[in-house]
Structures are given as structure tokens and as C-alpha cells.
């Protein structure tokens, strides 16, 4: 079997940003994802929200559902934080650091929709929040069990480990379940899909974009560790 390290998927290593034990690293793959998220975050920072027009029942009038100024400000702030967290998660070189980025994205996603007036959307946000809270068990346990099995949390060291033990496979799958719950992908998509039914479009899109990027990066990390 081919032994993968961090450059197999990412391409040649451009450089590292050492912050103590946590080493951020940059390859073409990660640089591209990082730049995409940063560009999108900048677009969000300068854009204004959409206004939804609903047709009124039993009359010919329209009903405009718009976002107030205070609500607009807090949403923009949380969206920018979400974008920066996603960008940071793209280039981090530490397993536990990535998990914390995912947790940060989860809480910020809840915050973006928490200010809405629709009860259905609030309910979806609450259910998503419950999922995110439960997901902290698989995420952090996976980090701790990976540490216990290998004695390190750095992706550079994890990539070099020759023998894959069943415990490492177990914690990698646990990590995947945690990411699935926290970002709301495939079988657990319903809460996140419902959260979109509210005005304020460009800010809501970062919820979606962050989970796409985090999923890609999580799969890359699992491949780095397990092969």
C-alpha cells in the first residue's frame, strides 16, 4: 500500500507557520481552499442581505420579510468569524486544533440563525444545536483516543506512523461521525436544511460553505492518518 503523507494529496509543501506544538502548513491544495474561503468571507463582509417577498394569502398584496439593522450587524459579525474559522481549519496541522475549529464553526452557525423571528427556523436551530452538543463527545473523544493510541496529535507525526491499530481506525470513524453531526452532512442534513428558510441570504450561505470545506478537510485528515 502506498504510504501517504501530507504532500501526497496536497502537493509540494510551501512552508510552515510554527506556533509551538501547533504547526500550520501550506500546500497548493490547502492554499487554494484557504484563499477561496477568505475571498468569500470578504464578499460577505461587504454585502447586504436579501429581502424575501411573500405573497399574502387571500389578497393581492405582498409581505416583505427583511432583516433589521441590529440583527444584520450581529449576523455579519458571526458570518465573518465563521469564514475566518473555516479558513483557519483549512491550513491547520494539528488534529485537536482542527477539532476545536469545527466546534467553533458549529457554535457560530447556531448563532447566525439564532436571531430570526420564525419559530420553525428557531426550532431547527435548536435541534441542530443539540446535535452539535452531542457531537462534542465523538470529536473530543476521537482526539483523545488518537493521542492515547499514538502519543502525538501533530499531523506530521501521525502521517509517519507505520502500523495502523484497530484503535486508530475506531477513533478515525468516531471523528468522522462527529464531523458529520457538527456540520450536518448526509444522514443528518434536515436541521441544517430547515435553518435556511429565513431571509438574510449571503450570511446563510457561509453555513453551507463551511460544512462543505470542513468535510473535505476532514476526509483528507483521515486519509493522512490511516493510509
Amino acid at each position, binding site marked *: 500500500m502506498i504510504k501517504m503523507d501530507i504532500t501526497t494529496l496536497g502537493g509540494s509543501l510551501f512552508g510552515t507557520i*510554527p*506556533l*509551538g*506544538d*501547533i*504547526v500550520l502548513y501550506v500546500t497548493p491544495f490547502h492554499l487554494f481552499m484557504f484563499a477561496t474561503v477568505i475571498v468569500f468571507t470578504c464578499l460577505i463582509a461587504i454585502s447586504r442581505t436579501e429581502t424575501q417577498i411573500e405573497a399574502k394569502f387571500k389578497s393581492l398584496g405582498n409581505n416583505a420579510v427583511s432583516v433589521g439593522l*441590529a440583527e444584520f450587524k*450581529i449576523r455579519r*459579525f*458571526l458570518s465573518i*468569524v465563521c469564514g475566518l*474559522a473555516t479558513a483557519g481549519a483549512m491550513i491547520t496541522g*494539528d488534529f*485537536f*486544533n482542527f477539532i*476545536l*475549529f469545527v*466546534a*467553533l464553526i458549529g*457554535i*457560530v452557525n*447556531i*448563532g447566525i440563525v*439564532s*436571531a430570526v423571528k420564525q419559530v420553525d427556523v428557531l*426550532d*431547527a436551530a435548536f*435541534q*441542530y444545536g*443539540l*446535535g452539535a452538543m*452531542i*457531537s462534542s*463527545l*465523538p470529536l473530543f473523544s476521537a482526539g483523545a*483516543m488518537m*493521542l*492515547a*493510541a*499514538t*502519543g*502525538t*496529535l*501533530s499531523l506530521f*507525526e501521525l502521517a509517519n506512523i507505520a502500523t495502523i*491499530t*484497530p*484503535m486508530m481506525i*475506531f477513533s478515525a*470513524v*468516531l471523528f468522522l*461521525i462527529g464531523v458529520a*453531526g457538527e456540520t450536518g452532512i448526509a*444522514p*443528518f*442534513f*434536515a*436541521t441544517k*436544511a*430547515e435553518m435556511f428558510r429565513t431571509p438574510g441570504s449571503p450570511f446563510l450561505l457561509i453555513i453551507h460553505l463551511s460544512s462543505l470545506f470542513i468535510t473535505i478537510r476532514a476526509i483528507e485528515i483521515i486519509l493522512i492518518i490511516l493510509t
Partner: protein
Amino acid sequence: MKIGEILNKLACPRRIPKIFSVVLGLFLLIGLITPIALNNDQVYPRPAPQEQMLAGDSIAPYDRGGEILKSPGITKAQYPNNSKSLGMVNSYMSPIADGVRNASPYFGTSIYSSPGGLIDEILYYTRGFDTILESTILMMSFIIASWIGINFTMRRKDDVDEVKLEEND
């Protein structure tokens, strides 16, 4: 059951936390039959429980060697080269903490919480970026909770009369 029915069940937000917890719970049962063992070559190892207490050390469970402001304590970091003054935070103790250490042998845990000590070195220095994220998470959740609280839950704007009444008495 048809696939369509299953998909319909999955589309209800109220069921998602329950489905997720069932999946996760069943997977944890697999963990009970997986061979689990601790690798004994870890970063930042610590002595066995009670070892330092029984030896009568005055900063008992958290003594990692070194002299205050002079020599670094023992820190087995992942990348020692990235942290230039590694171990200095570890051996540091504030003057008050040093006084407490000389006065009584029972305050090891309090002394390690004060500035200096191995945990501070991990939290602020070698893995400081984790702590930045962690405090950011705390800050974001406070922003969310207090924003909802001030703007909606507390209903301050409807409460003007009540607030004024309480200020007067």
C-alpha cells in the same frame, strides 16, 4: 420499509438529534469490543498518582523541576525547537506563590493554577493556539446568548416603567 419512508423520516428536524444519538450509541458499543491500549510513549508525561505527595514535595502533584527565573523545568514538548524559551514558564512561580510554597505544603494545586507551571506552559505557550480558539468559542456563545437576552428574552423595552419604579425605591 420503503426508502421513501425512511427519507421522509430523516427530513424531520425533531428526529435528527435522536437518530444521531442512536447511531453514535451503537458505534460506542463497537468501541467496547475494540482492543484499546494506551501507548506508553506520550508527550508531556506525568509521574504516577500520589508519588510526589508521598515524597513530601511542597508543590506536590505538579513539581516539574527547574528554578524560578534561572533554569527551565522538564517539558517534553512535541517540537521543542519551535518554542525558544521552553520550560521557563514551567519553572516560574509568582512571589506570592513562592511564599505560599515555603509556608505550607498543602497548596500544590493552588500554586500550579497561579501564573507559571506546566499547565500554563501548555495552555499559553506550546499549545496556545488551542486556547485562543477555546476562548473564542466561549466569547461567541456569550455574544449569542447575551444578544438574544438583551434584544428579546429580557424584553427590556417593554419594561421601562418597571425599571424606573425599581430605581426610585
